[in-house]
């Protein structure tokens, strides 16, 4: 039908626009990363020739000499640890909030909300001082702890929303069918809760992976510096054009996995964000 085709094309254009809007910076980075250093300043969106030298220089020198490998490892380990701990803590709290009756429930939720709106910059000073005093400065825990604090609200809200959707009567039904409470929990509840926890984990991981402020304030060396912070220091004494290619290559390395991640889990992520964010 005529009206149908016109609508179809309009929607296609709209969707294409959104996609282009989203991908321009990524494509640009990929393009930059593939340009040989001579061509880096040519200002073209599509590279005239392709070279992998930027990627090579990133990894050259192995773990010690490369400016990128150690930070990458740091990022991965710190983000994973944060995610694991955060989800465990948030799950406990979310389970209590979603299922049990107790005073202070609303206070905790309100408090979590307040923390989500808190300016991290206001904690940098004291943390800097405290960590130096305790010896957590420039260490993994030194970053993991603040990450926990600021990721918990999001995780708790998302998990509370997910847990509320679980039909808990199933647990009792399983017990009537002959399962022990623990069996019932393990075989019935856990599989139902797992997807929600996975989604919350994705959200926390992205948060920790993304952080810049804490990373540059609370680290000073490759000991625990993560990729975002390391990137900022790529721009060293060398001339401006040099690091552009390396930065672009490094950026691509840390971004492509995220894009694949997003591609596979987009439905989950959206539901987690709307559940968590909207409820919050």
């Amino acid at each position, binding site marked *: 039908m005529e009206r149908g085709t016109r609508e179809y094309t309009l*929607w296609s254009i*709209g*969707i294409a626009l*959104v*996609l282009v809007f*989203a*991908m321009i*910076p990524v494509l640009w*980075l990929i393009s*930059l990363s593939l340009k040989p250093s001579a061509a880096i300043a040519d*200002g073209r*969106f599509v590279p005239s020739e392709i070279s992998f030298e930027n990627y090579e220089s990133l990894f050259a020198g192995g773990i010690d000499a490369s400016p990128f490998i150690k930070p990458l490892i740091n990022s991965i380990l710190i983000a994973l640890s944060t995610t694991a701990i955060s989800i465990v*803590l*948030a799950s*406990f*709290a979310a*389970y*209590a*909030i979603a299922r*049990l*009756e*107790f005073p*202070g429930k609303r206070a905790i939720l309100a*408090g*979590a909300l307040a*923390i989500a*709106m808190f*300016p*991290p*910059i*206001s*904690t*940098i*000073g004291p943390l*800097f*001082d405290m960590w130096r005093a305790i010896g957590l400065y420039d260490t993994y825990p030194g970053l993991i*702890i*603040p990450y*926990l*604090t600021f990721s918990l609200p999001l995780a708790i809200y998302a998990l509370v929303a997910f847990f509320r959707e679980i039909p*808990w009567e199933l647990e009792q039904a399983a017990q009537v069918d002959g399962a022990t409470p623990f069996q019932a929990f393990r075989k019935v509840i856990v599989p139902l809760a797992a997807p929600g926890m996975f989604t919350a984990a994705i959200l926390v991981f*992205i948060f920790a992976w*993304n952080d*810049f*402020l804490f990373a*540059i304030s609370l680290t000073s060396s490759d000991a625990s510096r993560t*990729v*975002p912070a390391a*990137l900022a220091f790529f721009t060293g004494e060398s001339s401006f054009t040099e690091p*552009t290619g390396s*930065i*672009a290559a490094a*950026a691509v390395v840390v971004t492509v996995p*995220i894009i694949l991640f*997003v591609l596979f889990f*987009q439905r989950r992520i*959206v539901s987690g*964000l*709307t559940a968590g*964010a909207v409820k919050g």
Partner: protein
Amino acid sequence: MEAHAQPTGASERTRSERRLAWLLCAPAVVAMLAVTAYPIAYAIVLSVQSIDLRFPAEGGFVGLDNYASVLGSELWWTDLFNTVFLTVVSVSIELVLGMAIALVMHRAIFGRGAVRTGVLVPYGIITVVAAFSWQFAFAPDSGFVNGLPLISDDMDWFGDRFSSFAVIIMAEVWKTTPFMALLLLAGLVTIDGQLYEAAKVDGASAVQRFFRITLPLMKPAILVALLFRTLDAFRVFDTIYIMTAGAQDTESVSILGFNQLISRLNLGLGSAVSVLIFVCVLIVAFLYVRVLGTRVEEGRPVK
């Protein structure tokens, strides 16, 4: 473990339920408070002292001197203006764009997965990475923007205050519009589709339907989204740091705080800035909540 509350006072079961609940929540609560409640208290303490880590020997209680210095400095007020300016402009643009994207996502009959992915890429990307990308794009020699039609070939985006702002805003909008779109989408889906049909039959055009049905019914969701995004935008740091490091008078209050604390190691002044930022955020939040009243509660779609 059942979830219903006991009608009469605290029976043994209620009390054990409460105990369990507190036990479960404790670790998370501790983790959350440890890095917020204590540091902010500590920051207040630090702010009334003169502490310069470069000169550790000097120092001591100076009362409100630090605050006086900050509030009396032109830099603070410039930065505050910058921050507010960036916030207002970014959030306004994001609201309009986010609404458009939310509508596309809501009504799309096909390609939903593509749109969702497109919308989440900015969300997943590291802010710093995105900032670099945009910075490189607008750089005078290596960037591609100056090669675009209608844009002068040697425009120096980062040489001027407001053109720098333009790039910063562009990057911020790109990064956070998706989140705004998702928040708005959540509000959109709560509107009963039949209302649009009734409006169609009543004689409303698409535009009329949007302004008379969609917008009014989305008010709570819009206000919540605005609240979140405003507070978020107020804290802008990453993008500015990467793009201009605050040059050309583009510094934000967070960068000011950072500079004092980490670069200059002046914990006293820096803490004063931190506390003032916190106060500003509180004021913004308070104003919003006042305006929203109980609307924030209403804004939460009932699942």
